[in-house]
């Protein structure tokens, strides 16, 4: 055990790890928001509620069907993604020709509905969800104790983020997607079914949120409020990073998580607000965001 800046290494690295974990959720969620915004021109206010939904689906699968974490990691995003597709077909598709703000208001309404239903049945107390057997316990690294599950969350979310980046920026499917973001009419003229692409994009973005929810379930308790407060922080992350760049969303997400973790060590009073303060500073210095293009 040793000290850095008068802080025991255990505390410092512990908070740094927690910061990285929060950062992986920020990254996954802001990535989903950016992908959805790129295609649909809608800010998905229901993203937090869908993250919560992902955690609850994993909880239900384990509780009522005995389906374990690893399968939930696959099933829950698909299930929640399908509900996203239904929402897009039923509601969102009528809004594309209207002002962006209506999309925000509509998805806000959907978030209220989802949250209200779950609060009604599950109150505000959290439900525990055990980490899978394989990832119980941890490693003693000498300078800190590393719980296996937390290491897994950081690594896996990094893999998911980078895969998403690769698919969008480096594959043919991704190039269709980017082209449709730039000029949907022209892409349609080439015979590509853009409306279906939009629907699937929304489903995918929502699925990412649900995936983050499943990963969060063993760390935080599963509760109806878990998404509501997180989504506001993610909005700040998106304002800081700008939604123009996929890699930007990933880097900003992880970076801000780490900064938040360090703040918890050095100036705990500000740990709730530090991201918002950074947002204010970024707005003063670089109004378009760190990775944003000036509109």
């Amino acid at each position: 055990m040793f000290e850095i800046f008068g802080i025991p290494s255990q505390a410092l690295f512990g908070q740094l790890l927690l910061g990285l974990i929060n950062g992986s959720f920020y990254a996954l969620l802001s990535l989903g928001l950016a992908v959805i915004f790129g295609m649909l021109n809608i800010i998905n206010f229901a993203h937090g509620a869908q993250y919560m939904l992902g955690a609850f689906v994993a909880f239900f699968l384990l509780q009522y069907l005995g389906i374990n974490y690893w399968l939930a990691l696959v099933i829950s995003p698909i299930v929640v993604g399908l509900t996203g597709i239904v929402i897009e077909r039923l509601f969102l598709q009528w809004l594309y020709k209207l002002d962006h703000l209506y999309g925000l208001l509509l998805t806000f309404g959907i978030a209220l509905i989802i949250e209200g239903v779950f609060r009604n049945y599950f109150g505000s107390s959290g439900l525990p969800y055990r980490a899978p057997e394989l990832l119980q316990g941890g490693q003693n690294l000498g300078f800190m104790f590393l719980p296996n599950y937390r290491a897994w969350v950081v690594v896996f979310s990094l893999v998911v983020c980078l895969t998403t980046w690769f698919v969008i920026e480096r594959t043919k499917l991704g190039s269709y997607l980017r082209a449709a973001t730039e000029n949907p009419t022209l892409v349609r003229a080439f015979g590509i079914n853009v409306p279906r692409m939009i629907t699937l994009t929304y489903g995918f973005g929502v699925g990412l949120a649900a995936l983050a929810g499943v990963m969060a379930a063993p760390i935080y308790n599963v509760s109806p409020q878990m998404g509501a407060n997180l989504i506001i922080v993610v909005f700040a992350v998106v304002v800081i990073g700008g939604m123009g760049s996929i890699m930007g969303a990933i880097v900003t997400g992880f970076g801000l998580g780490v900064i938040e973790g360090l703040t918890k060590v050095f100036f705990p009073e500000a740990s709730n607000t530090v991201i918002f303060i950074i947002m204010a500073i970024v707005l003063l210095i670089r109004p378009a965001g760190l990775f944003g293009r000036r509109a």
Partner: protein
Amino acid sequence: MATAELTFGAASKPAQSRSELIAFAVMVVFLIVAPAFLYPVFLMKALCFALFACAFNLLIGYVGLLSFGHALYFGWASYVSAHLAKVGTISLPYWVGSWKWLVIPLPPLSPELAILGGTLFAAFLGLIAGSLAIRRQGIYFAMITLALAQMMYFFAVQAPFTGGEDGIQAVPRGNLFGLISLADPIAMYFTVVVIFLAGFLMIYRIIHSPFGEVLKAIRENEQRAISLGYKTDRYKLAAFILSATFTGVAGATKAIVFQLASLTDVDWPMSGEVVLMTLVGGLGTVFGPVIGAFFVITLENYLTKIGQWVLVVQGTIFVACVLLFRRGIVGEIAHALRIRL
């Protein structure tokens, strides 16, 4: 990407101020006779929210800016006003090597001064948040205002004078101008009516002034307004501060009426609620926010028994408004009758 504008209730109708005058007269008569058959506390709550929604509508309805953080001004004005009315003494932290407190000793203030103090603080917050938020447009504007409001929510949780989860309770209503005791419900009610009508008329005046015309020009086409030589950022900031100020009046008054300032009023669901009221009543209509506020407050009164389902009902109204009637109640009526309201 072609996107049509927000749908406003009566955007392009010619001036027909007669319909507005009649509606105003009906409203005043209603407010005078209402306490005879409706519970005054309910009416005062609805009026505070009506002014709140009118102030919010000034921004979304006439400049086209959606603020998702108006609870910030509402809640903080109510804290400041409650504190001034109950304690008075102001302690400000400052930094000289270590944190020190600058203490301004004040006696508990009379209600009009407490409301004024809360309002001024809201205006100050509006200046800061507004100058940050107008640096980005559209969707980002909404996210920034929401994030800033959430930041100040955390301050409200941590600051010593707000009383955390308890809030500031048992705020004395005091004597208006040192003369009229507001402990009397009817005196309190008519004070709130006067404050509401004054705020309503001032907002009406702002909307129909040359300044208001420039705001509408910015809403319709900001680039065009810029090319006509208007410094649109200044107009937007001024509108933002005005909106925050009137919101502050509403919040500060509410603290005196209910003798309470609490975290509920600074938290983000409150920001959502005022959006709902304005949307239901009709964006960009003069009377819409008032009708919307009465509608939502009445609804909540009847729905308190069903607990968390309130959220579901509110969410459903949001969805229905956005998909089916974007003009809102007053907007649809005005559209059907071809008048301005």
